[in-house]
């Protein structure tokens, strides 16, 4: 039946059937084909971020519980030994040795230390600069034995643990005493287990200290000229020189930097006493100002369908257009405090990110017009950043830091020849750290 003339005729006629869809159809299609991709990417991004943060966190905690604690214990032990060595190297330390020797000979755990012993302590590194009341506290703690009848303070008994926790200040004070002083005053044989318990608790307390950070940055950004020639058809090869004001045909583009803004939430953790690490999520907006002329509407035809396109005159200068690049990134940074006494730290890191929205003008070859293109540049970006942080205020629960920063995107804005332009920014920022 299908071979019959009627079917052939109908088929031929129906092949000719064509209508022009109304404009909203394409708008709906475009909205739908963009949205799921964005959603999928955001979900993937969040999943990647979650996994990354989770793995980092687990490794971090694992290291804090093992390697870092052990390393810190070693460091602490060295620091403990160091003051005594220093004392013995000095002439006046002879006197201290005599006192310690005499103290060791005295077999009385509850014995009150003499003034001479205080003086020896003041000569040591840890005692220097402490008030006499601090010293009294240390001594008071050392004489804790009567408060815990029938309990050996140098054993790892539960009673001692609880007492130590209740007397946290004294606990820290005793842990900072030189080992020789501690044992000689107490007139007991060294008990490494107690030292270990004391030191572990202190180090663990330091290492598990986390701080939430809200970070705001403002400055200037540069986007190069890549946003102007994202389409493959554009003739950027005519301008091989990397300049922010390239020449397209007979058009001299006038492009300048624009405002930069970023806001993020970070989690900061102590790695050691001078080194901190941070990770989080950040939004950044890079802009670029392009001088343009009038905005004109032209009709473009394709396959008998006409549609209006907005163009900007490239030779003009009456107005301006802002290329905008919005990025969500995961800033990972290390923060080093070079000098303990100065509340200044140096920060550096990377912030892999994705340009969730970006729009820019592109030059239409052979014309004197620019056209807005979305998206304009490649979306995955890897910025490196560095900066300084100075503590301008602090309380027990928060710290406020401020300082300059600079960032540079290693990834180019487009993967094409001559496209060696990169996003960059610099400015100043503030950080509020909540402990």
């Amino acid at each position, binding site marked *: 039946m299908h071979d019959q003339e*009627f079917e052939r005729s109908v088929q031929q006629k129906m092949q000719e*059937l*064509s209508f022009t869809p109304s404009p909203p159809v394409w708008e709906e299609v475009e909205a739908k*084909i963009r949205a799921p991709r964005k959603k999928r990417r955001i979900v993937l991004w969040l999943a990647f971020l979650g996994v990354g943060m989770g793995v980092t966190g687990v490794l971090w905690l694992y290291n804090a519980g093992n390697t870092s604690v052990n390393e810190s214990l070693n460091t602490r032990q060295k620091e403990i030994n160091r003051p005594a060595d220093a004392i013995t190297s000095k002439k006046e330390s002879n006197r201290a040795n005599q006192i310690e020797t005499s103290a060791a000979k005295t077999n009385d755990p509850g014995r009150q230390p003499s003034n001479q012993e205080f003086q020896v302590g003041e000569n040591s590194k840890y005692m220097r600069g402490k008030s006499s009341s601090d010293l009294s506290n240390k001594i008071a703690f050392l004489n804790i034995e009567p408060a815990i009848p029938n309990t050996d303070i140098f054993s790892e008994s539960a009673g001692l643990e609880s007492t130590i926790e209740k007397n946290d200040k004294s606990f820290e004070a005793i842990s900072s005493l030189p080992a020789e002083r501690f044992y000689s005053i107490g007139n007991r044989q060294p008990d490494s287990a107690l030292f270990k318990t004391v030191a572990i608790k202190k180090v663990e307390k330091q290492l598990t200290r986390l701080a939430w950070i809200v970070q705001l940055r403002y400055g200037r950004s540069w986007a190069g000229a890549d946003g102007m020639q994202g389409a493959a058809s554009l003739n950027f090869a005519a301008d091989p020189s990397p300049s922010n004001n390239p020449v397209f045909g007979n058009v001299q583009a006038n492009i300048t930097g624009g405002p930069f803004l970023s806001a993020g939430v970070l989690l900061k953790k102590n790695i050691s006493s001078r080194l901190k690490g941070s990770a989080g999520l950040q939004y950044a907006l890079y802009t670029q100002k392009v001088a343009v002329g009038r905005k004109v509407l032209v009709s473009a035809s394709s*396959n008998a*369908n006409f549609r209006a396109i907005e163009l900007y005159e490239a030779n003009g200068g009456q107005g301006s257009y802002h290329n905008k690049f919005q990025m969500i990134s995961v800033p990972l940074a290390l923060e080093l405090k070079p000098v303990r006494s100065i509340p200044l730290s140096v920060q550096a890191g990377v912030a892999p990110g994705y340009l969730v929205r970006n729009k820019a003008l592109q030059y239409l070859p052979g014309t004197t017009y620019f056209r807005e293109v*979305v998206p304009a540049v490649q979306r995955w970006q890897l910025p490196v950043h560095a900066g300084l942080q100075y503590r301008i205020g602090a309380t027990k629960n928060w710290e406020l830091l401020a300082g300059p920063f600079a960032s540079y995107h290693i990834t180019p804005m487009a993967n094409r020849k001559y496209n060696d332009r990169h996003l960059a920014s610099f400015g100043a920022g503030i950080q509020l750290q909540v402990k």
Partner: protein
Amino acid sequence: MDDHQLVAECLKHRPAAQRMLYDRFAGPMLGVCYRYTKSMGDAEDVLQEGFVKVYRYLSQYKGSGELGAWIRRIMVTTALNYLKKHVRYQSELAFESDHLHPVSTDDPQVSLQAKELAELIRQLPVGYQTIFNLHAVEGYTHVEIGQMLGIHEGTSRSQYARARALLITWIEKKMLDHKPGSYARSGI
């Protein structure tokens, strides 16, 4: 830019290429959707859904056949799903023999314009319209139509015969109306 280059560009998610693909095929594909539905609004809905699927599954296009034919198959499938999904079509898409029409095997010369013919096809009951489109225009066999619509092959065959007969009657009437002498018969 030929179809293969266009597909390659679309797969890179280039907006300009996606728009070009739409511009190239939207017109004829709206014609396809128009034949399966009862209004231009419904046809545009099908076109929209169809194009979303086209972009989503474009990576599955192997390039062995014509791109237009591949998109056309997506549009037809989308149209069929649309008919099944929407209540206003469901009652007529029962493929029951409630509305029997005389069967004719005549092959009249179709001298109508494409739009006029499409209008007549759209006046068929939905079941007839669908089977007629699938068999006469798209070239599917009755076995394939049976599988696509979940009906027996024989049902498809009989429905098609009736649709064809009805359409031929209407075409003849329309052609008569076009002749100058037919005015008197139609009372004009």
